[in-house]
């Protein structure tokens, strides 16, 4: 119930460009400029005070509608949770690959590590983030591993200051893109 009201209000406010209902899960699609406003609006007015998850999905050139996203996009996903009536809502935005977004650390301090993770694995920059550094990969790692065009490689364990050029895997079939990352 809350989810429907929240969706309606957010659409009326003009923050949301598209509403997707799939298998009882509501997804609000926002443009990158509006996503933080939408999150703040939902948090303040509808009690979505927990950011349960923050992650991203990468799309290459032909994974999405080429008319809208000719160069592909990275979908950043925020999952909001309302602890009083257990309603949930997903807010997503399509950012440019390697593009910029406003950080939500001031709304949820816990978003800190989640945004660092998205930066580390996808290369999305979060503006006004207190400490946007790599979190899972070594500090001197090159590239962002969860991007779709990042090859799985066959090298063994990586050590600090010992990063060698990566060789696309012969065994594991994957996108074999020879570009440098």
């Amino acid at each position, binding site marked *: 119930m809350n989810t429907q009201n929240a969706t309606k209000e957010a659409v009326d406010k003009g923050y949301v460009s598209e509403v997707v209902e799939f298998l009882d899960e509501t997804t609000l699609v926002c443009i990158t400029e509006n996503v933080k406003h939408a999150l703040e609006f939902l948090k303040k007015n509808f009690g979505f005070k927990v950011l349960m998850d923050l992650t991203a999905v990468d799309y290459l050139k032909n994974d999405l509608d080429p008319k809208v996203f000719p160069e592909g996009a990275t979908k950043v996903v925020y999952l909001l949770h309302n602890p009083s009536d257990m309603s949930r809502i997903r807010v997503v935005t399509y950012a440019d690959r390697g593009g910029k977004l406003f950080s939500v650390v001031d709304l*949820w301090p816990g978003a800190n590590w989640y945004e660092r993770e998205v930066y580390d694995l996808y290369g999305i920059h979060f503006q006004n983030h207190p400490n946007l550094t790599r979190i899972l990969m070594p500090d001197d790692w090159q590239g962002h591993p969860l991007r779709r065009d990042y090859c799985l490689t066959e090298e063994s364990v990586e050590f600090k200051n010992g990063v060698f050029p990566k060789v696309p895997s012969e065994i594991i079939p994957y996108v074999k893109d020879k570009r440098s990352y």
Partner: protein
Amino acid sequence: MSKTSDLINTSLREDKDIMELHLGPQHPSTHGVLCIKLKLDGELVLDAEPVIGYLHTGIEKECETRTYHQVFTLVDRLDYLSGPAEEQGWAAAVEKLMDIKIPERAEVIRLIMLELARLGSHLLWLGTSALELNMSSIYMYCFAEREKILDIFEGVSGARMFPTYWRIGGLSRDLNDEFIPQTKDFLKNFPSIWKDLNNLLTHNYVWCERLKGIGVIDEKMCYEYMCTGPILRGAGVPYDIRKAYPYLGYENYSFNVPTHPDGDAYARYLVRLEEMNESVSLIYQALDKLKPGPVIVNDRKVTMPPRAELAVSMEAVIHQFKFVSEGISPIPGEVYIPVESARGELGYYVVSNGSNKPHRVRVRSPSFASVQVLKECMRGLLLSDVVVAIASVDPILGDVDR
């Protein structure tokens, strides 16, 4: 609280001899390869910064290159103490995408396995936490019990820690003959062990003094830092996925969600201890509901045909070949499935693009959030209490780093 923050401020202002200490990553009491950068003034912790990533295995990336049924072996390894919960998350997500209703017997068996895994995980947590406070006998009691659970797992699936027992649409095989007597035997003995543990610890002077008031995470902090599971329930919020978003028919069972208002390490200990009791009662109820029947859906597009059929049916051979070589292809779309693992909300966010491999598998791990909150709850503690604070949030580093 104000007294400690005053102390911290004075130490920082006077620029005394501040020591930087890296606790871990190779330290037995950090529950895995967790590094904590501590700023110390004598024994007083001025600042703590957890550093993770030492166990990053890239399983989320690896999942994108595997077919849907190959992923089970990978996700098992994330939270290596409750593999069944990870498998349930993955299976439930794919089943939701493909609109599969699993047989009733499979549901009940899954529930029993999940609760056994929760018991095992809590027992290991209690044992190692006590060991860190130099109570090695409790460690032995806990591990002896956990060993029985692992034996049950071994009988059922052939593997002790990573069962890989789940399949999309049900389970890989039916229960072995010893399962029910073995489980009943375990359940019969467990309450006396539980009582022993309770007698040894709950009013133990050393245990209480070491745990009370350590690592306080209150309700507000839980919401800010997305903490779930025993941490949130230890802060007095009865939030449990099994009640909030029931799966596997949890709504048909009667069980309580234990809470405690204090939010410190002792509260979390009490919550976990009570949860073990609830799990035992859940398993009893589930054993009563166990009726004969199939354990996997009878749909050749989703599951392998039975072995015996291969000898007599050409169709079965084709189905098996297609299943093994190509796998299954859910409809395009995205789902998020939460599961209550032993550590809190374990979420599987699966994006399918209609092919036989997932486009994206995201594991929302409960430990990731609980390690992040350590930074906030450790300021002002003594060095010896840091170990208690880490143990009380029960991080599994395989789950944190994924």
